[in-house]
């Protein structure tokens, strides 16, 4: 699978279509984000394979927004999975990235990873390598799933109490693009004091992510949480409770299908 990606990106370089390729690189025993600036460097490309294939994931789209803000006229390729592509689409919509200057190079996540992260579409439309695995729907409520609503709410609040307020969920989020973050609003969080009570803090973010149809359910927030709070599950639950059309994974999947043919035409036209 890696060879197919390498060959595809080599061609992009050879045809002069990209100035660089943002992907992953094995650095000793570590795997981290890397900007490849020439075809000859692609031997070191990684797809995040560790004990399990493709499991090391980074918010490459978010890094891309930082590069694009300094170098808006350069075209870059970027390694994408299903979730990355969903984030990419959103960043195009809000003009954080220019689709004319981004070439997504996609690969399919293995079925085990899709299962682990409960991903309903574990492959991008700009698919270059890998066999698309079956999507997984569900997994919205591992906390107190057998309880009544109040018991459930209490269970969630008890879970929130574990929060150490590292803001990692926001920092890693590929679609957290606001220039002014509510979580840093002086009126809500006075500087030099402890952040507010945990339930409000995490629920504010949940409502923001879901209510504005931002969340792409990649689960990077959940993965990065030092307190193991199941944030993606919370967002899925909030999406269902809020009931806003197009915010649940199923709703987003339907939207994706509607524009899928258009995207396919774009990606095959490259």
């Amino acid at each position, binding site marked *: 699978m890696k060879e197919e990606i390498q060959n595809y990106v080599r061609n992009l370089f050879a045809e002069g279509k990209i100035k660089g390729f943002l992907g992953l690189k094995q650095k000793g025993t570590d795997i981290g*984000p890397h900007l490849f600036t020439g075809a000859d460097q692609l031997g070191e490309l990684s797809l995040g394979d560790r004990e399990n294939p493709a499991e*090391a994931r980074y918010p490459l789209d978010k890094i891309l927004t930082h590069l694009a803000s300094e170098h808006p006229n350069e075209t870059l390729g970027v390694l994408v999975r299903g979730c990355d592509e969903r984030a990419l689409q959103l960043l195009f919509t809000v003009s954080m990235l220019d689709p004319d200057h981004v070439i997504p190079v996609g690969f399919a996540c293995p079925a085990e990873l899709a299962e682990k992260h409960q991903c309903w579409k574990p492959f991008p439309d700009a698919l270059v390598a890998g066999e698309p695995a079956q999507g997984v729907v569900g997994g919205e409520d591992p906390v107190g799933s057998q309880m009544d609503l109040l018991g459930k709410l209490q269970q969630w609040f008890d879970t929130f109490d574990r929060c150490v307020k590292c*803001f990692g969920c926001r920092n890693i989020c590929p679609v957290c693009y606001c220039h002014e973050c509510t979580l840093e609003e002086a009126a809500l969080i006075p500087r030099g004091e402890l952040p507010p009570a945990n339930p409000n803090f995490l629920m504010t973010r949940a409502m923001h992510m879901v209510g504005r149809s931002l969340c792409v359910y990649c689960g990077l927030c959940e993965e990065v949480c030092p307190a193991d709070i199941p944030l993606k599950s919370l967002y899925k639950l909030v999406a269902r409770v809020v009931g806003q059309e197009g915010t649940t994974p199923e709703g987003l999947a339907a939207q994706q299908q509607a524009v899928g043919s258009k995207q396919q035409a774009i990606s095959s036209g490259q």
Partner: protein
Amino acid sequence: MDYKTVLTTCAYCGCGCGLYLEVLDGRLIGTLPSKTNPINEGKLCVKGWNIHEFVQHPERITKPLIRKNGTLTEASWDEALDYTASKLKEIKEAHGSDSIGFLASAKVTNEENYLIMKFARAAVGTNNVDHCARL
């Protein structure tokens, strides 16, 4: 365009979390936790997440400062070291070794922390040594 991620270890405490510093065109722009580091497994605390900020911070102290007539004034390393040494001697003679304490740092190496401990015990004669990363 020059974008690099530099794998390093968090300097805020003794845990040793692995992180990537993001460098764009020679300037630090962000921190990402290493997803593959066996210590932190892709997680960081609030300090680690913001570790890139102090490096280029405009208020970072890069030269020794001595308070002269109530105002912190830039000084050379020689002047600062001479001043510190003479004051330490004065205090030790007037009030004894245990009137002095030493605070080491998580932002320096084990060897440097060893040296300050050695200096406190062997040169000054006190066991008053502590460390901000005594977690």
